[in-house]
């Protein structure tokens, strides 16, 4: 059942993205930015955690979870260190994703030849 809901919810989020691309004529960069903002706002109301509980990777794999993790790390540190904690914790949970994307992206660009 986990797999079913991961598929449906993850696919559903991508359909929203496709509608934004085709109907509202946004560029992929606009769609991704909107989704990250949406993830942060949804986490602000504690909605995104429920979605993760329900759909597992269907909610953690789409880019919306990047916004969710940014806010989550920020609030964790803010509860310990006050207002400055927001800045301390903002990359706390997302650094794995950003760091590995930089590392692997760099290595691939060095090793591979660009393809048409």
């Amino acid at each position, binding site marked *: 059942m986990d797999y079913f809901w991961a598929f449906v919810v993850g*696919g559903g989020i991508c359909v929203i993205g496709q509608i934004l691309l085709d109907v509202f004529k946004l560029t992929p960069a606009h769609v991704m930015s909107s989704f990250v903002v949406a993830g942060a706002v949804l986490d602000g109301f504690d909605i995104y955690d429920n979605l993760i509980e329900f759909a597992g990777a269907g909610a953690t794999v789409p880019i919306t979870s990047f916004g969710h993790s940014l806010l989550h790390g920020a609030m964790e540190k803010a509860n310990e260190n006050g207002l400055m904690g927001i800045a301390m914790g903002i990359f706390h949970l997302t650094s794995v994703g950003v760091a590995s994307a930089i590392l692997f992206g760099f290595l691939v660009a060095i090793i591979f030849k660009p393809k048409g």
Partner: protein
Amino acid sequence: MSDQFNQKQYNNTLKNYQPKPNLIVNCLKAFVVGGLICLFGQMLTDIYMNVFDMTEKEAGNPTVTTLILLSALLTGFGVYDKLGQFAGAGSAVPVTGFANSITSAALEHRSEGIVLGVATNMFKLAGSVIVFGVVAAYVVGIIRYVFQSIFM
């Protein structure tokens, strides 16, 4: 002249020559491909949980790392961009699309050198995601923090 070729007319004329996206087919493709990527992510999470005895939270990081590694490699082989042409948002919205945008921007500017090409252009597309993510998380975070300290 200005009556004949105003913006509205131009847009109307242009519409006839633009390809009409088939919304339902595109959405179906995005749904299936995006769903499969998430399904694969769920499989990876389960593997890390069962084989390496991790909790669901601990398994999140290696899952994301694996997806990003695979996406970067597939971009290097030119496979992911073909998938992107087929699936549209289905391959752009998952975290693999984030890795793809970084890797493909880096690859594209490879010929300009490692520092000025690869490193400076890497975040050409992904930069907007990080900027908007951080700004949004900051704003929501401050609102929540103030809200918490007043009411709790």
